């Protein structure tokens, strides 16, 4: 693999709100052109980090660099390299959808002859083209979110920050938005930095940083995270549990009986296949489940990622 440039570098970043430390001395890098996800429960410090990287929160300590520019001292250059969809609404509610998008084009110097076409495109993406003359204040919560996302996708920044972009979207829109975001990354080499607590979204990212209580507790590819922190499990239903248990115990494989099936940790697939073939006449059902990123979080913290209230 070639060594990609680090488009984002964060070193020893700390952010305090008064006496409360929301982000504690975190460091990480993001490769140019990759999709990077912050995965963590509410209150973990994801938005705090994004807002600081976007130049609108002041850091308490540390160093944050985007595209070689310091986020605190070279704000203007950082701003021209990024695009953001914030978690909270930043729409101009008194204006129409179209006026909101046009204003964004002015802010980001979208060439005049492309404005119309791009607005049309992003509004089609989030299925709002027909209502583009409506005032934002009159829209439903879900529609507002879609306007917000459409606006964020109008221009082509070097780094696109998406803070829980798809939370609250219907499945079809979510799928369409994702498809387009991946297209932007592939075709325009835009680096995507997102936060999410949807496992399936984190799953398709190049790298994931698992964050909890203001600290990064794991940072790797989804594949490696699962490899190191989870086990595949087989769920086997058999009419002869005694034979299965005996064979498993002989090879020291961990297992538990759950109602009708046995849950078996898969350390070595060949071993398991061997055992299963020996009692194949008794087995009525087999399912093998891969570890998920949720299991990763569970393994490291002892908690489910989506516990606790939404914010």
């Amino acid at each position, binding site marked *: 693999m070639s060594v990609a440039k680090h488009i984002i570098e964060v070193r020893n970043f700390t952010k305090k709100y008064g006496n409360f430390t929301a982000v504690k001395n975190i460091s990480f890098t993001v490769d140019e052109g990759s999709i990077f996800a912050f995965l963590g429960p509410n209150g973990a410090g994801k938005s705090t980090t994004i807002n600081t990287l976007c130049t609108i929160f*002041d850091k308490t300590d540390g160093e944050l660099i985007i595209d070689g520019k310091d986020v605190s001292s070279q704000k203007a250059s950082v701003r021209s390299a990024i695009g953001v969809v*914030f978690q909270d609404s930043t*729409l101009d509610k008194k204006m129409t959808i179209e006026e909101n998008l046009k204003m964004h084009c002015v802010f980001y110097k979208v060439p005049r002859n492309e404005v119309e076409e791009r607005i049309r495109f992003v509004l089609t993406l989030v299925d709002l083209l027909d209502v583009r003359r409506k005032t934002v204040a009159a829209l439903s919560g879900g529609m507002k979110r879609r306007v917000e996302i459409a606006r964020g996708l109008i221009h082509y920044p070097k780094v696109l920050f998406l803070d829980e972009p798809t939370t609250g979207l219907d499945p079809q829109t979510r799928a369409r938005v994702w498809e387009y975001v991946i297209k932007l990354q592939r075709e325009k080499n835009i680096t995507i930095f997102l936060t999410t607590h949807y496992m399936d979204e984190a799953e398709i990212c190049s790298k994931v940083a698992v964050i909890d209580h203001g600290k990064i507790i794991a940072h790797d590819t989804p594949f490696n995270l699962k490899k190191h922190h989870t086990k595949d499990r087989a769920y086997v239903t058999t009419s002869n549990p005694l034979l299965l248990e005996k064979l498993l115990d002989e090879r020291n494989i961990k297992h538990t009986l759950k109602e009708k099936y046995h849950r078996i940790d898969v350390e070595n697939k060949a071993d398991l296949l061997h055992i299963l073939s020996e009692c194949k006449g008794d087995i009525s059902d087999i399912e093998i489940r891969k570890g998920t990123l949720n299991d990763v979080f569970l393994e490291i913290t002892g908690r489910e990622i989506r516990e606790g209230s939404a914010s």
Partner: protein
Amino acid sequence: MRVIYALGIRNLKVFVRNRTALIFNLLFPFFFIFVFGEIFRNDFIENPVSFMLAGIIIATVFESSLRVSSNTIDDMTSGFMKEVLVSPISRLSIAIGQFVSSAVVATAQGIIIFVIGFFIGLRITSPLTIIYAISAMVFVGIVFAGFGLFIATKAKNIQTFQAVSLAITMPLTFLSGAYIPFAMLPDVLKWVGYFNPMTYAVALFRAITLEKTHLPTSELINEELAFKIGGVMIGPMEALGILLAFGIVFLLLSTLAFIRVDFSRMNRIKDDSIEI
């Protein structure tokens, strides 16, 4: 330029779309014509109606531009200012965009009273006066919109802004000669008035409306169109300079406030953003 224009138009739309505020803003000046009309019927003023109207027009421009500046606070609390400030546009053009629109609204109001003035006795002889008067309104509007914008960037919520602007507007207008002639004020308040930039806006605008800018400064003192403070004469040109300096200071201060803004210090707003 594209940014200033777009922001300016946007702010004007916000103003026009808010019907209640629009109607209130248009009716407001009539109230003052009604209340203060009598005060100026005294003998040291040559043309009391024009004199009074000029004061009311410029005070309205002042108040209006200050009030319209408070829209910036709505933009802060609604989150829209985040979208503006995270973008790469220059902080100076953000500030200019905000207060050019305030000045336009303020001038529009000033012009309305000016027109009504002709029906109740305002007299001018040269059409040039109209151009000068409108330019002066725009200028004063911009200067005090800068002031209003600065308060808005500091106030953080609309209640604070209203309290602060009331605490500032009242003394500034009443100690400016716009509604109450200086001659009627006790000495102490006169001195306060001399430090009030509004005083010079009023004097300048009156000198223009009464078509007396060409007269020597010493002849303007009687009608409070110029002042002699200590040994220093302050005529129309000096007034212009004072206002210009005042405007530039607040333009820079509000630009600085936009440069320095740290949203993590803002009150967090829980609104309809997203429901999970």
